[in-house]
């Protein structure tokens, strides 16, 4: 029985080492990639810009501010949300994993046209699609 355990332990250790190296490379790769910063301003009852184009896998940081009252920022499909307080900057890091159009909206009731305060993030397969 012991003879069988030894190769198993060695195999497990080797696998763990390979996995560790892979993860390190991925993390290292991500850390080196420049993070594009996209500024978004919220005000009654819109976001500027109201459309953000991103590329799959491209890490970005959304810097969100409010010009007037407290607004919200929520993307249910991506599980992201933030409060946007006037005079403060909320930073949301995002690495899009799939192509598509994702709506974000204000989830902090802000007035008469609150229900129409939304914008979209469009995630493309490549930069070429963004330029086109």
């Amino acid at each position, binding site marked *: 029985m012991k003879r069988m355990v030894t190769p198993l332990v060695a195999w497990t250790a080797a696998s763990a080492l390979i996995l560790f190296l892979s993860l390190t490379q991925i993390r290292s790769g991500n850390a080196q990639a420049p993070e594009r910063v996209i500024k978004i301003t919220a005000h009654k009852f819109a976001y500027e810009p109201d459309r953000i184009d991103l590329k799959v896998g491209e890490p970005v940081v959304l810097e969100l501010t409010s010009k007037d009252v*407290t607004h*919200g920022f*929520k993307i*249910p499909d991506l599980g992201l949300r933030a*409060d946007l307080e006037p005079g403060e900057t909320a930073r949301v890091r995002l690495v899009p994993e799939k192509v598509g159009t994702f*709506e974000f*909206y204000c*989830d*902090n*009731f*802000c*007035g*008469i046209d*609150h*229900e*129409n305060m939304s914008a979209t993030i469009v995630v493309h397969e490549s930069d070429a699609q963004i330029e086109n």
Partner: protein
Amino acid sequence: MAPKIDRREFLKLAGIGGVVFASGIGCSVARNGVSAATSDNEDFYFVQLSDTHWGFVGPEANPDPTGTLPKAVAAVNSLSVQPDFIVFTGDLTHTTEDPRDRRRRLGEFKEIVSKLKVQSIRFMPGEHDGSLDKSKAFQEFFGPTYYTFDYRNVHFIVLDNVSDPRARLGEAQLQWLNADVSKQNPNSKVVVFTHRPLFDLYPQWDWATTDGSQAIDILLKHPNVTVFYGHIHQEHHRMTGHIAHHAAKSLMFPLPAPGSQPKRTPVPWNAATPYKNLGFREVEADVNHVKYDITEYPVVRS
């Protein structure tokens, strides 16, 4: 002992002989909550009205914004058997950023509903009433935003998921809810009234309560819970575990089905079918079988 007559029997009689409808019998049955012949286990019924949005202006959605609520009041008053009580599940008024306008609208709304024959009325705010001032004005007119009351053998819980503009019940209210539900007898019946759906119906349209899942987890501890709410301006029914959630129609403008179109814009008014998809409901509580029969009523009969 006086002979008992329940509402179903009465309606049956009323249907057979229209004269009964016009007699005083309707009143005596309607008030059976105070009759010596009743008990806590007898059926009763209440009326739910919702999303009256008093102050709304938008002729493409409703060219009769000041007439619809009075028509609904008249329709409730014309029910052959008056309800035991009435509940308004929020958005009594349409939002305004002017605090004076908000109070004027709340006052006008209160004046109109004072014409309901049944004055046992429960209110709660919607986000249009309370999210811009944490329900300060609402409380001046209607009192607390969350509370409980008991009627017959049913325990009613009113929840406030609008005074926090982030659509949260909040930790304090959740603790209060947990304490209240925990002390209920497992055989008792619980009905919850609230404005927004407690579950994620369609968060993209703000049709959710941010911490609603915590409330549902608390309510799931009790075996007999039913939720009635508003906010989405249409009839809708959903189960979360053993809890049934029933959304009511609006009395100002209908909204489209969840996610059925890109924007949550009101369904346009159709002159050929005025007041279509607006209305109120009556809910008959069959106390012994923990059953709630829902009947939808239009604002005006065609």
